[in-house]
């Protein structure tokens, strides 16, 4: 699987490269500056890109901007955005094109190497991975999606974190069938049209972020 990495700190750049290569990823390009990100992504069209939010020269959010721009020009290009802090606002911006293949994780998550590699694979496969921190913060909010039951909100949170039905079932100690029933209820209540597409999951998560 071909990967592009954008990270300005040499220490983390080397760490990411080492981890991904240890798990048989092919790191085809590594960039350390914001302006280089977009051309590199469009040139290599990798299977997945791992981008840092804050990059030189302005040290603001050029990584995030590059991700959004790249997905505008190459729709659905799988991108995993890493940051030292997470904001629901950024998550919403990343998801706003309503396609899958997006991840947004705290850099801390990389230290659980197996889970991180799994996340990269999921994003590459078109999944949506939101950091538990984003999810938790939204769950803490005072204005929940009132149409959903407490259980359905829980399931939605798990979906936002990028988990499959089986994984959700395991975590909530229910059967997979129950999970898919909850999910269908969520789709119905949020008015998302039925389709075979994974896209509906993204839309549900987006609704969740927008709530």
């Amino acid at each position: 699987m071909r990967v592009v990495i954008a990270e300005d700190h040499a220490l983390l750049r080397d760490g990411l490269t080492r981890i991904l290569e240890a798990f048989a990823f092919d790191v085809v390009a590594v960039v350390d500056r914001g302006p280089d990100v977009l051309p590199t992504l469009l040139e290599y069209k990798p299977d997945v890109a791992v981008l840092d939010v804050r990059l030189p020269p302005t040290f603001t959010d050029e990584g995030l901007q590059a991700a959004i721009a790249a997905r505008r020009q190459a729709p659905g290009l799988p991108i995993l955005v890493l940051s030292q802090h997470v904001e629901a606002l950024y998550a919403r911006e990343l998801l706003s094109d309503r396609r899958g293949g997006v991840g947004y994780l705290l850099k801390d998550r990389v230290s659980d190497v197996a889970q991180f590699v799994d996340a990269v694979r999921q994003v590459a496969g078109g999944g949506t991975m939101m950091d538990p921190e984003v999810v938790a913060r939204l769950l803490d909010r005072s204005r929940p999606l009132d149409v959903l039951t407490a259980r359905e909100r829980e399931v939605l949170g798990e979906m936002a974190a990028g988990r499959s039905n089986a994984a959700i079932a395991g975590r909530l100690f229910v059967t997979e069938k129950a999970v898919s029933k909850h999910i269908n209820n969520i789709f119905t209540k949020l008015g998302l049209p039925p389709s075979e597409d994974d896209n509906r999951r993204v839309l549900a998560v987006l609704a969740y972020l927008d709530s």
Partner: protein
Amino acid sequence: MRGVETRDWLREGLRAVASGILAVALAVLNFPLFVLFVVSLVLTPVLGIGLMLLPAVTALIRLRADLARRVAGWHGVPIARPYRPKPAGLAPIGWGHCKWILTDPATWRDFAWLLPGAIAGLAIGIVTLALPAYGVEGIVLLPLWMYLGGEWSGYGVNWPIESVGEGFLSLPQGAAILALGLAVAPYLRRFDALFGRLFLAPTRAAELRLRVTQLTVTRADTVDAQAAELRRIERDLHDGAQTRLVSLGMTIGLAEELVDRDPATVRKLLAEARETSSTALIELRHLVRGIHPPVLAERGLDGAVRALALTLRIPTTVDSDVTGRLETPVESAAYFAVAETLTNVQRHSGATFAYVSMHHTGGVLRLEIGDDGRGGADPKRGTGLAGMERRLAAFDGTMTMSSPPGGPTIVTMELPCASSSPRTMLSSGTD
């Protein structure tokens, strides 16, 4: 020692007499200025002329008044400028300009001063000059008399002079009068300055307005400086310790994955992790020192500056009577100002020796930092000094720098601050 005192007294007297000559000359200028001002006022209704004349005449009067303020300053009577700041974007000529001038009470106080100021200046100035002049006359009377042979009616108590013996008496009398004249001259000058201050100093309202203007500026500067400082800290944390900790997690995570497959690599990874963790700690320590040095918290300004001096490459002595603790914000501002200055000394001066002296008297903390380097430092160049000045200004502190080419460079800072609290005399009382 006595000789020095006599010389000082003589110099003071002569300076005062010179200043008296200046005062008389300047006082004369007041009369035409008075006339000009009245004329331009009368002509103001005659639109074109008055509007053109008034700003120019006012500028001249202010120039003259500023001169009087400066002269008063020489005699220990500092007088602040009372004028309202010029509104931004004001045309140099026109009604707006005249309005700004005419609504400023200081304009009218200057005007009110012109005549009394001139009369007082002339009267006091003439007395200042007359006494020493008469003294000199007494001293040179006899030689002049002998040389010119003219008719001299009398001098001092001998009136008229009737014999050569009486003529000789004029010498000691003249010397005494000259001495008296020189002795009282500084007091007369001071009296003149005090009289001028009645008119030329800002009124209470003007003083408050000046203060508000100054506080507005320093407050904005302080807020800016603080925001920049916080941003710097955020950056340092983000790029420093936080990044190291993330990297540490990655390394340990990878080691965990490889522990069964590749023990040799794992050992290397763990060594790397240990190194990263100690680097992260070092960076945190540096950062903390930049925010509030622990030694400053523990020992106050005196201890912190001594600790700093020990770490410099240039031998630096610290002379301080700052015992006890100052208010925390002042202490911190003073410390960073000293630290910044010493960093500059180390970087740019080429000095072989530096000193810091810190004295806290009468509610003012006075800091002096000097070196024997090459001098020529320009306070306008570089942001460090300007930043320092702003930081001090937030506490009504001031900074001045003297750095002639070839050195030495001396930076003086003054910070008003409340007297130290006695509770921590312990730390400084023991050594």
